[in-house]
């Protein structure tokens, strides 16, 4: 019998081209490209006279920079943003790469359209010049973010120089209570392991709670692996995965489908395979959570109070003091008493159709509180169209939400969707760093259901008590 291997070990072995003293060259099956981290890479190729080795394995889409208002199809007003988006279009054309333009219904956040179009498949290696590439691990594909130099490396060679990471298992047993979602699970894990807890590791998520999550829930879960320090998160593929993948534009068909399915059914960690680190949570202990500070690890159940920095140790004491000052909060303050100004629903973490359905469910018969700015930015053009078909868009507009076009939007505020200094936002995105959503802006991360509850009440609120 051969060595017992984890899912990560298997995908790694399958893609290993060469290994020299632990420095390995691995093959990359899919390369997703967006406008912000690619122009310097394409420029590098041009300067050295290199070509894109596998244009058919590469796909490009503008998402970070583009406006989400209806007038965007007539041109981007911000000149710098326009230059970046134009550069991507031109590079895609020049190097013969599939490109979804701003006016294409398939355009959207790169991590949403990858799975949506079937570019992302189980067992693949997937990279993108974006840390939230971890999202694609939901399919049992080894997916991680890379820098621009590595983008250029993958474009030129279809490979990446890597050191193998360690194996980490995060197991979530039991089941989730009402109002508790994949976002609460992923944030609670980060709260437990800390923002560097997964550094140097690839996380495999297992357990009954993970099995029960939908594919979209698993994408939310894996998306934030990087917020726990892990470059990649994985969920072993199962029937839900195959069902999600089947029939998508880029998915295998006919004989290839059968062949692929046979291959994918081998993608699991062998019983007894070795994990360097194991963390366990019980789903029953997970409550709807919100963040109070400026790191995703600063997370607590909604019925808690703002912590006292002196409850922490070492460097975290000063960091927590700084966070509270930035966030304008005091120790002992009830999280539920914190009023908000803005609600942002969207991003590669929570911009999919199930997220919008969740919001619609909470908003049924309810309105956005007067004076609250509430915005919904679907993750892709297709998500937008689907929500419009289902009547979700009409319902939420009626309830007082702004209904936008697809993009990264206020998750990182590179486009005009930004917070002003001191503005406090209930956000379904993934980072609450200082200035992330706009200089001086204050971000509280939470699930779409919790963000909807905040929209209704104008403060952080337990959706279970609505």
């Amino acid at each position, binding site marked *: 019998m051969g060595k017992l291997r984890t899912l990560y070990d298997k995908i790694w072995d399958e893609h290993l081209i060469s290994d020299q003293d632990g420095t390995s060259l691995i093959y990359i099956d899919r390369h997703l490209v967006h406008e912000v981290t690619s122009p310097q890479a394409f420029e590098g190729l041009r300067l050295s006279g290199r070509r894109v080795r596998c244009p058919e394995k590469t796909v490009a889409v503008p998402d970070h920079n583009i406006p989400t208002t209806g007038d965007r199809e007539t041109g981007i007003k911000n000149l710098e943003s326009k230059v970046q988006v134009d550069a991507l279009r031109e590079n895609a054309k020049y190097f013969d790469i599939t490109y979804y333009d701003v006016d294409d219904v398939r355009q959207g956040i790169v991590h949403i359209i990858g799975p949506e179009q079937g570019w992302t498949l189980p067992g693949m290696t997937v990279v993108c*010049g974006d840390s939230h*590439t971890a999202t694609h691990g939901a399919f049992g594909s080894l997916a991680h973010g890379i820098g*621009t130099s590595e983008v250029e490396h993958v474009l030129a060679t279809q490979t990446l120089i890597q050191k193998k990471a360690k194996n980490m298992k995060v197991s979530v047993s039991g089941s989730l209570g009402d109002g508790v979602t994949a976002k609460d699970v992923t944030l609670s894990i980060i709260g437990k392991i800390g923002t560097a807890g997964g*550094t140097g590791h690839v996380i495999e998520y297992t357990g009954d709670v993970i099995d029960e999550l939908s594919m979209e829930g698993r994408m939310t879960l894996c998306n934030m692996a990087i917020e726990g320090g892990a470059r990649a998160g994985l969920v072993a593929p199962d029937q839900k995965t195959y069902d999600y993948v089947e029939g998508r534009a880029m998915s295998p068909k006919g004989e290839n489908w059968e062949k692929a399915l046979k*291959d994918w059914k081998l993608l699991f960690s062998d019983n007894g395979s070795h994990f360097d680190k194991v963390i366990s949570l019980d789903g029953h202990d997970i409550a709807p959570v919100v963040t109070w500070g400026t790191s995703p690890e600063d997370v607590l159940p909604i019925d808690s109070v703002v912590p006292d920095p002196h409850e922490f140790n070492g460097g975290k004491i*000063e960091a927590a003091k700084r966070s509270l000052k930035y966030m304008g909060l005091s120790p002992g303050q009830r999280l539920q008493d914190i009023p908000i100004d803005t609600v942002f629903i969207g991003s590669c973490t929570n911009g999919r159709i199930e997220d919008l359905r969740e919001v619609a469910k909470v908003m049924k018969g309810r309105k956005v509180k007067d004076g609250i700015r509430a915005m919904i930015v679907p993750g892709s053009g297709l998500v937008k169209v689907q929500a419009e078909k289902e009547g979700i868009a009409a319902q939420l507009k009626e309830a007082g939400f702004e209904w936008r076009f697809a993009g990264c939007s206020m998750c990182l505020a590179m486009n005009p969707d930004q917070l002003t200094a001191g503005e406090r936002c209930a956000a379904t995105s993934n980072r609450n760093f200082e200035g992330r959503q706009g200089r001086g802006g204050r971000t509280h991360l939470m699930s779409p259901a919790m963000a909807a509850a905040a929209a209704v009440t104008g403060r952080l609120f337990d959706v279970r008590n609505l």
Partner: protein
Amino acid sequence: MEKFSTLEGIAAPLPLINIDTDMIIPKQFLKTIKRSGLGKNLFDEMRFNQDGSEVPSFVLNKKPYRQSKIIVAGDNFGCGSSREHAPWALLDFGIKVVISTSFADIFYNNCFKNGILPIIVPTEDRDNLLDDAEKGSNARLTVNLEMQEIRRPDGSVVSFDIDPFKKQCLLDGLDDIALSLEKEKSIAEFEERQKSCRPWV
């Protein structure tokens, strides 16, 4: 890429933990299509007020530290996004070495692609180096990559570990892509194999 051998210079203390890439270079500066020129925006929101004036208390605005070539930082430096603009901004400012107890993986990798040496040392050594870095114009450290040593102002030495391949790439200023293209034959063979056993990829 420029070769890295030894570096002597002023070290700036940044003891805050979890310094993220949004702090190192905020998103409004990612709209460039170039690698250069980002130094003036390094740590922008910590370094400058909204009106563009300097925040006098921020370390890189203080006299001797304006010439810093080294940063001694709190745990988990460079967490967050994959933006290579973070090391580009550091390098453009003149920072060629960052010393901490730990780095986020993507940032750590990105440094090596740009001739920046990120050094991991135990907490006790980092804390001592932070104390050294507090000494203003006397906060001079000498980093010797070949020897894997940091020489402190008092002459004592802190040694560090580094992956031999990454070390060699920095010492020689090697271009990764050229190195990998030397393996063209193996890559082509892999692709052929994949075509037959995983034709859907």
